[in-house]
C-alpha cells in the first residue's frame, strides 16, 4: 500500500461515513424537534424555562454539576432509575429541546437530577444542601458550595427573611447570618424547574402510576 492518493481518499472516506451517519442524519432527524401540544388539555410540553431558571442553568454548567449528576432516566427494566423514583418514565429527545447546553451526564457520583424539581420542591432544602451537603445528606461527598452564600452580620432590623436556618455546628457565629447570593437563587430556580415527566406520545406516563 504505497500509493499515497488512495490512502488519502480512504482516510477521508471512512470518517465521512460516520460524519454523515452520526452527525448530519441525527441533526436532520431531531434538529427541528418541537414542543408537543396535548390535544385534550392544550398543555405545551416541554415549557420554556423562566429567565431566572435559565440563568441558573448557566451556573449549573459553570459549576460543573454535570460531572457527578446525570439528567437522563433510563427505560423501565433497564437499571433502577424508575424504581429509585428518579422519574415516572424514561426521558426522550424531546425533553431536552429547551436546554441551551444539554447536560445528560455520564457519571452518577450523585443521584440523577432529571426530576429534582418534582422530587424536592422545597427551596430551603436546596439552599441548605448547597451550603453544606452534610446538613441534609450526611455522608455525602458533594463539596460544600459556601461561596454561593454571603455570611454577614445580622442588621438592626433583625434577621433577614431569606437567611438559612442552620443548627448546631453548621450555624454561623453568633450575630451572623447566611444569605444566598443571586447565583444561589438562580441555581435553585433552575433545579426546581427540572421536571421531565410530561405525557408524550413517544413516552407516555402510565396512568396508574401517575400521581
Amino acid at each position, binding site marked *: *500500500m504505497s500509493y499515497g492518493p488512495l490512502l*488519502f481518499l*480512504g482516510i477521508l472516506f471512512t470518517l465521512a461515513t460516520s460524519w454523515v*451517519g452520526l*452527525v448530519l442524519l441525527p441533526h436532520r432527524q431531531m434538529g427541528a424537534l418541537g414542543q408537543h401540544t396535548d390535544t385534550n388539555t392544550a398543555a405545551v410540553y416541554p415549557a420554556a424555562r423562566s429567565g431566572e431558571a435559565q440563568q441558573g442553568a448557566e451556573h449549573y454548567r459553570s459549576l*460543573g*454539576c454535570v460531572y457527578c449528576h446525570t439528567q437522563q432516566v433510563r427505560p423501565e427494566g433497564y437499571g433502577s432509575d424508575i424504581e*429509585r423514583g428518579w422519574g415516572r418514565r424514561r426521558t426522550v429527545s424531546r425533553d431536552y429541546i429547551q436546554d441551551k447546553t444539554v447536560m445528560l451526564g455520564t457519571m452518577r457520583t450523585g443521584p440523577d437530577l432529571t426530576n429534582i424539581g418534582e422530587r424536592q420542591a422545597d427551596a430551603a432544602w436546596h439552599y441548605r444542601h448547597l451550603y453544606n451537603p452534610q446538613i441534609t445528606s450526611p455522608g*455525602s461527598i458533594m463539596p*460544600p458550595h459556601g461561596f454561593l452564600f454571603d455570611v454577614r452580620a445580622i442588621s438592626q432590623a433583625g434577621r433577614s427573611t431569606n437567611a438559612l436556618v442552620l443548627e448546631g455546628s453548621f450555624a454561623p457565629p453568633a450575630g451572623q447570618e447566611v444569605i444566598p447570593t443571586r447565583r444561589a437563587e438562580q441555581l435553585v430556580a433552575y433545579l426546581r424547574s427540572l421536571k421531565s415527566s410530561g405525557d408524550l406520545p413517544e413516552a407516555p406516563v402510565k396512568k396508574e402510576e401517575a400521581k
Partner: protein
Amino acid sequence: MIKQSQTLRALLPGDALTGGGTDVGNKAALSEIDASCRVPVLFFFLSGLAWLLAGTVLALVASIKLHTPGFLASWEWLTFSNVRTAHLNTVIYGFASQISVGVTIWLMCRLCRIPLVAPGLITVANLFYNIGVTVGVGGILMGDSTAIEWLEMPRYATPILFVSYALIAVWTIVTFRLRAERHLYVSQWYLLAAVLWFPWLYGTAQVMLLIEPVRGVVQAAVNWWFAHNVLGLWFTPIGLASIYYFIPKVIGRPIHSYYLSVLGFWSLALFYNWNGMHHLVGGPLPSWMITVSIVASVMMLIPVITVAINHHFTMLGHFGKLKYSPTLRFMVFGAVSYTLASLQGVASALRSVSEVTHFTHHTIAHAHLGMYAFFTMVMFGAMYYILPRITQREWPSNGLISLHFWGVALGIVLYVVPMSIMGFIQGTMLNDAAVRFLDVVQFTLPWLKLRTLAGLLLAAGHIAFVINVGWLLVRMFEPYRKPVVRILTGEAETVAAAKLP
C-alpha cells in the same frame, strides 16, 4: 543492517531500509534528519511534560477531593468539577497531544527520509498551541467551562487550537508529498490518518457545539462522536504507529505480517469512528444510533485482535530484550494494555454490561487504561528512543528510568484494576433500588482513597522522568559531544539500537 529482499522491504520502517547508500552514509543521513528535528520536537516534548506535571497535580487534588470533600473547599476555582476538568484538558490537550505531535514529526521525517521541512511553521503551531491550552485551562478554572465532555475549553480558546492542528496537518501533508523514501510503512498510514482526521473532528465539534450549537440531544450525539474519536482516531492511530515503528526498530526484525497490518488499519478506519454512541446506551437518543454504535464497537474486535497478533508475533522470541530496553518495555506494556483496553471497551458497549458499568467508576478506570496504560506508556517509550537521538546524548540515569517505569506501571495497575472492580460493584448496587444511594457513596470511599495512593505512585514516576529529561538537557550544554550511535556498557538501549540506525 538487515539483508533486504523486496518482500522484506514492505515490513521494515523506511529509515531501516538500505536505500542504496552505504551503511555510514545512511547513518549520517539519519543523524542529519534527527538534528533538523531537534528544536521543534524538543519544544513539543518539553511543553508537553510541563503540562503533564500540571495535570498530575490537578489529578491528585481531584482524587483527594472525591473522598475528602472538605479539602480546599473554600476556593471556588478549585471545586472538584473545575479541577477534574482542568486535569482532563491539561493531560489530553496539553500533554498527550503535544507529545503525539512531537513523535509524529520525528517519525514522519525519519520514515519519509527527509530533514524537517518548514520548521518555522511547526514552531508557530507549537506557540499557538500552548497559548490556546493556557487560555483554555485558565478559562475552565475561572468557571467558563462549556460542560461538554472533552470539549470544555471555552469558545475563546478553541479556535487557537484548531489553527495549530490545521497547521500540523498541512505540515504533515507537505512532508509526505516531498518524501524521499517512496515505500510507505504502516506507521505512516496511521500518522497521516490521525493528522487528517483530528482537525475534521475538532472543527465539526466546535461549529456544532460551541459556535452554532445544535438543538437538543443532537448535542450529545456530536459530543460523543467527537469525544470517542479523539481517542479512536487521534491518540490510537499515533499510539499504534509508534508501536509498529519502535518494536521492529528496537528488536531489529521486521513486523510479522504485512497483510495483518493492512487489515488492522482499514478495519480500524472503518469501524472506530462509528463507536461514539455507546456512551449513551439507555439514553434519550433514537435506538438506531445506539445500536449502530454497539455493532461497530463489537466489530472493533477485528482491528484489535489483528494488531495484537501482529505485534505479538513480531515480539516472539525477543521478550528477553524487555530487560534492557526502556523503549521496548514501555511499548510492550502499552501494546498489551491496548488489547486489554479495547476488549474492556467492547464488553462495556454491550447493553447488558453497560446497564451496570455506565455512570460508574468503571468507565473512569477504562479511560485510564486506554489513555494511560496504553497511550501514555507508548509515548514514554517513544521519548526514551527519540530524545537521545535528537539531543545526541545518552540518558543520564538508569536508576531514574527504572523508578519511572515501576512507578507508573505499578501506579496504573493499582488504579485500573481496583477501580474497574469497584465500578462494577457500584453499578450493581445502583441498579438495586433497595440499596440507599448514600450507602453506594460510602461503599466507594476506601476505593477512592486507594486511587489517591495510585496517583502518588504515578506522580513519583513522572517526577523521575522529568528529572532525567532535565539532566539530559543539561548534558547538551556540556562541551563533550558523544557520537550518536555508540555502544556503551550497560546502556542496553544503545546496544539494541546499534543494529539499526
